[in-house]
């Protein structure tokens, strides 16, 4: 296959970026998109040019490291895949393919196609811990009954790999699908209820502090999510946050009648 790649090149976080054309030849349709970029980088290195920086790690669709806005969509065409699972057979000989980094204020570009996604880590950290006894008095794993349907929903939410495709796909750069998955995976289980209010409030506060946009239920995120996380989770976060914001008590008790004297 012969292709023309239009790739975003940006020397550093403060540098001005631009699209640069790269013709590539001899691409097998069995290659993944990342392997195709490897071929291009090998060529660039041999020619003495700076190779293109892009994120990748496991290359089997479970780590969430690979990003890339390919041909106008996060992780390129096709559903439920990451970029390492995108194969060149999805494209035709002679295609022109745009490759850009995730675009969001909360995901600043580090170099070329690599963005800083540590905002997600900080949101996750703001969520805090789940109270689980690890003091040696082991409790049988099945001592607390969990309905199968709830366990399945919690597991579905927990499959989020934090890749950031939801933010990249969202015209508003909202991180709601990610945050809702991370809230839901605990909110659905009895073990996660103890800190549920704090978790929802703290994670949303952190999400706002990172300057992500607002969710307006456009739904592009659930279409582009490689793990098929549903908008149901965003509705659950909306319920969890509303309940927590209304009912979370702070401060000392308020006297029913004001005391007449000190």
């Amino acid at each position: 296959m012969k292709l023309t790649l239009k790739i975003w090149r940006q020397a550093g976080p403060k540098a001005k970026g631009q699209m640069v054309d790269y013709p590539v030849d001899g691409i097998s349709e069995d290659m993944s998109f990342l392997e195709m970029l490897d071929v291009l980088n090998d060529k660039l290195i041999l020619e003495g040019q700076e190779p293109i920086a892009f994120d990748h790690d496991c290359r089997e669709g479970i780590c969430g490291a690979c990003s890339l806005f390919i041909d106008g969509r996060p992780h390129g065409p096709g559903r439920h895949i990451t970029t390492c699972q995108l194969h060149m057979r999805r494209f035709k000989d002679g295609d022109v393919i745009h490759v850009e980094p995730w675009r969001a204020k909360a995901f600043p570009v580090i170099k070329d196609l690599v963005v800083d996604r540590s905002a997600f880590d900080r949101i996750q950290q703001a969520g805090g811990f789940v109270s689980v006894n690890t003091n040696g008095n082991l409790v049988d794993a099945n001592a607390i009954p969990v309905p199968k349907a709830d366990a399945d929903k919690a597991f579905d939410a927990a499959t989020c790999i934090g890749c950031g495709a939801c933010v990249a796909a969202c015209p508003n750069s909202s991180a709601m699908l990610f945050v809702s998955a991370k809230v839901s995976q605990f909110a659905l289980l009895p073990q996660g209820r103890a800190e549920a209010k704090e978790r929802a409030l703290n994670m949303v506060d952190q999400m706002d502090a990172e300057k992500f946009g607002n969710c307006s239920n456009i739904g592009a995120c659930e279409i582009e999510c490689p793990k098929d996380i549903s908008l149901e989770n965003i509705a659950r976060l909306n319920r969890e946050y509303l309940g927590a914001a209304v009912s979370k008590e702070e401060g000392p008790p308020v006297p029913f009648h004001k005391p007449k004297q000190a």
Partner: protein
Amino acid sequence: MARQGLFGSALVKKYWMALTGLFLITFLVVHAAINAMIFFNDGGITFNKWAHFMGTNLIIRTMEIVLFIGLIIHIVDGIMITRQNRAARPQNYVYARHNDNSRWYSRSMAILGILILLFLIVHLDNFWIKTRHIIGNLDAYGVDAAGQENLFARMQDVFTNPLLVVIYVLGCFSLFWHLLHGFKSAFQSLGLNHRKYNGFISAFGAAFSIVIPVLFASMPVAMYLGWVS
């Protein structure tokens, strides 16, 4: 309410948008139902009777103030949300295929809202400021056959202007797309997403989004073509 205040967090802004949106939807039902009285085709007697009731009833008059407050919250909230969303993506994509993963009207609520607001300014200028005797009044139209203030005649007069008829129909198109996303979106924003009811909410929302604007649009068209007199 929340730690970030009444309009602080991204989620509280969603709740306001949903609640005011649903409230404005209830207004649309009442407004469309009352206006549909013109189709009794009785020289506007039934319509004028109801218009008089709406214009003089204390509860309705109070609700009119609440309605304006709801509309203003809906608009101000929308401006805040849109500004933040713009700021959240300072560098846009060079090439994006948004249509592959979402609907254009879902992404265009702000623009559709502005179009509806522009229509509303024309609409309030045509009718509201006169019926409330704020600027001008309806004296020039005399009374109807039952001796009532003749808002019906004012409608007939306004809708002899083809440009205004076109503006009203375009306003109804904007409302259709705004509702098509807004109706079911309001439920999602309030957390009302359930596998058993999502299909119904979506279908009812779509039907509502068609019926109300079609009913509204049929009024200026019917008057312009002389179907109602």
